């Protein structure tokens, strides 16, 4: 029985962001950009989609007078990721 994969996570860049954040306490936007090789504009759009789904928290603040965006996975994001991986296994075992 194949379960539908979460459309929010079944997207290359959004999945990359969540997979990165699952192992970290929090990460700056610039760090995520560097690790995913994404453009700032595209990453910003995808991060907003993850935020709207409640999968990540986004904190905008100032550090040394420069704006800084920090992202952190939420408990809902962790559950969604775990569910996604579980459902993914049903496809891979077919």
């Amino acid at each position, binding site marked *: 029985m194949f379960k539908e994969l979460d459309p929010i996570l079944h997207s*290359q860049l959004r*999945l990359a962001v969540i*997979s*990165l954040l699952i*192992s970290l*306490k*929090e990460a700056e936007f610039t*760090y995520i950009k*560097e690790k995913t090789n994404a453009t700032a504009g595209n990453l910003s759009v995808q991060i907003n989609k993850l935020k709207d789904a409640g999968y990540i928290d986004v904190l905008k603040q100032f550090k040394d007078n420069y704006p800084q965006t920090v992202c952190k996975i939420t408990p809902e994001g962790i559950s969604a990721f775990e569910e996604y*991986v579980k459902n993914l296994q049903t496809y891979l075992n077919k």
Partner: protein
Amino acid sequence: MIQEENFNEKDSLALIESMIKKAKNQFSENGDSYLLWGWLVFFCSLAQFVLLHIMHYEKHYLVWMLTWVAAIYQIFDLRKRKNKLKVKTYTDDIVGYVWIAFFISFVLIGFTLGSYKLLNSGIWYAIVLVLYGIPTFLSGIILKFPPLVLGSICCWILSIISRYIPYDFQVLLLSIAMIVAWIIPGYKLRARYKSSNKSSLA
């Protein structure tokens, strides 16, 4: 780069694996604190030995006041480093708490032994070496860094050895412990940090 429309289940799994691997290779420990404290305790223990047994200086213990200067420097340095970090890991948090627990235990045991007037007895160095071993061992396990684990085991062996050597020479065991437990692993951590930063920029 895989196109979004062709992104299938196998690609998903490969992507998850690669991103988790990237996060796992995130090293923020650059070895600076190990080197600062390693060299400081190494110097202080040697200096105390020279002041006490060669120069016969009565207030030989004053050399340890340098640790307070280092502690103040460490607080500012850690704050500066924390501000520079682009990412925070759970590993860093746990290692930090281990060292806080060590510092509190060290101060409390020092206070207790001091109040029983046992700081100038053979038991002090044995306890200090056991204490040095605990956070070093835990950090080595958490950071998956064998040189620290090896260093901690050396501290514990030196603690046993301290029982069998004259009190006057026990302070020198601290110098040996620092070389194996903090100085050598400190330089190796620095090398790992530099190479991981280089590869992440490549």
